[in-house]
């Protein structure tokens, strides 16, 4: 019995208790650190208005381009005298909002396409959907984003739409692969023999059993989205001003590189640490779910 169970099935059969989290933390210490960082990221993003020392848009005319620590600005100010730390914290808010909305939108579409495609794997439905996904993947993400964002114009909503196009094929790939496996499971045949309709099988038997690898992909995609969103804002076609965003802060800092490096270093560092945390968490979850990876 125990031999036949795959990694995901094992995880699926593991009861969701606190001990599961403790086991994850002991087996994957890096993952646990990442989890702490991510919690911190989320807390900062949500509580930014209460944590930030200054209004991110307030211009301190006396302290323009002051280095960190001077004039009561822990991470310095930019060329308009705005507090870099406060802006970075608010930037986390923008990034989190966009990333969550993107994962929700793109994840949902990718999931539906992947699950349907996997269940009907090998038929024309599958072929048509997958060729479209191939085409979407063949366009480098930044080019695709540039293209769509340019057509739609800069706004938070349009950034989410553009970024979703990046999420859809990846989620689709994972969901389809899992569904191809699941549809061969006897419990799907059992469901059919009992008289369950196809939509019911997909939702009640497919979805709950493919969530684990999807979370891994979701975490890795979160990292990708954070970078892509910043890249768009950096190029000036993402989040429009005055909303604080890491990407635009970097692009503003670019003109002051030698005079005020903190304008570039601080938001970039927070961005990189966030990306790193999601990458580490994704890796740790994958290793945790796959016993073969444990060395």
């Amino acid at each position, binding site marked *: *019995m125990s031999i036949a169970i795959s990694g995901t099935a094992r995880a699926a059969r593991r009861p969701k208790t606190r001990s599961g989290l403790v086991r994850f933390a002991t087996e994957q210490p890096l993952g646990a650190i990442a989890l702490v960082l991510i919690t911190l990221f989320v807390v900062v993003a949500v509580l930014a208005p209460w944590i930030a020392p200054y209004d991110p848009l307030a211009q301190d005319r006396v302290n323009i381009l002051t280095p960190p620590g001077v004039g009561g600005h822990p991470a310095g100010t930019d060329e308009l005298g705005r507090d870099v730390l406060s802006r970075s914290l608010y930037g986390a808010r923008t990034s989190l909002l966009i990333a969550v909305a993107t994962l929700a939108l793109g994840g949902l579409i990718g999931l539906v396409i992947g699950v349907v495609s996997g269940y009907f794997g090998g038929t024309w439905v599958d072929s048509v959907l997958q060729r479209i996904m191939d085409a979407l993947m063949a366009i480098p993400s930044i080019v695709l984003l540039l293209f769509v964002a340019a057509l739609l114009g800069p706004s938070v909503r349009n950034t989410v739409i553009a970024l979703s196009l990046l999420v859809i094929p990846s989620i689709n790939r994972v969901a389809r692969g899992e569904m191809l496996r699941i549809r061969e499971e006897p*419990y799907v045949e*059992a*469901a059919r*023999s*009992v*008289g369950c*309709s196809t939509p019911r099988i997909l939702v*009640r038997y497919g979805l709950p*059993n493919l969530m684990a690898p999807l979370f891994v992909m979701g975490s890795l995609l979160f990292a990708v989205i954070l970078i892509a969103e910043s890249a768009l804002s950096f190029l000036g076609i993402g989040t429009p001003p005055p909303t604080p965003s890491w990407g635009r802060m970097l692009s503003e800092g670019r003109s002051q590189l030698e005079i005020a490096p903190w304008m570039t270093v601080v938001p970039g560092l927070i961005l990189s640490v966030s990306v790193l945390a999601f990458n580490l968490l994704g890796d740790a979850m994958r290793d945790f779910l796959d016993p073969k990876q444990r060395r």
Partner: protein
Amino acid sequence: MIVPGATPLVEAHGLVKHFGDGKGLFTPQRPPVRAVDGVSLTINRGETLGLVGESGSGKSTLGRLILRLIEPTSGTVTFDGQDIATLSKSRLTQLRKRMQLVFQDPFSSFNPRMTIAQVLTEPMLVHGMGDRASRIKRAKELLDLVGLPSFAMERYPHQFSGGQAQRIGIARALSTDPDLIVCDEAVSALDVSVQAQVLNLLKEVQRELGLSYLFIAHDLNVVRYISDRVCVMYLGKLAEVAHADDISERPRHPYSQALMASIPSPDAHHELRTPLAGEIPSPRRPPAGCRFHPRCSQRIDGCDRDEPELLTIGSNSEARSVACHLFDPTSAR
């Protein structure tokens, strides 16, 4: 037991299932796998029909054809007088209520994310039987029927032993009050002591509810214990159909004899006259003539040329069907 005079519950005619004969855009054409190649059988009301054969004989495919879980290449199945091959999707779904399936590995036949309560009420829910409370009540009754305590309801499948899990599988199959249950190697994965318990449970349930079983297994010993009649299957075709006692005491077809001989018996007075040699050939390229002839110890002239038909032999009480040239009066000896 067989009710005389009544129409059979299931009648299958000339069932054929070939896999993989579709030509892909890039795949060269290959001969199809002839999993089931012209099988006719009947299952009477209240009867247990055994279906025995080596793995690869097509018996599981046959079971799924009868339930129309897979589409036949040709042939018909009637269930209680209705041709299930031509039923609309919604009518077929209604009919699913009356025929159920029990799996070899009970664990993998349950959604690992569902509690036993959900597993047992799912079929009733799908068929719109009763309200939530009455479904839960019935699920508890079913657990009681198969000998499990009602606190099993909130557990997950992996928290049970193999025998317990198979009892839950049987309870699920019973939940819609079906007329037919197909048991596909339902006890093969269990320990011998547990096998007997589950087999007795199946017999008990049948006595109480009067349903029919199609009992599929590779182990003739198990099949003859539970069945009224037994079909012996070889490479997609029926070799012999007879009463369980006749099969175990007087097997006629050389393949049935070989299967019987392979059962280890404590009183070894059976002479091992036909040991089964070699492997079952590929159903992609079945042998010409009688499919069993390459492995048959009683091969005669013509076995490798003419395919024997399934013919009824013997008198009323001992009537049976055999597909073998040895018993065909018309075949040239």
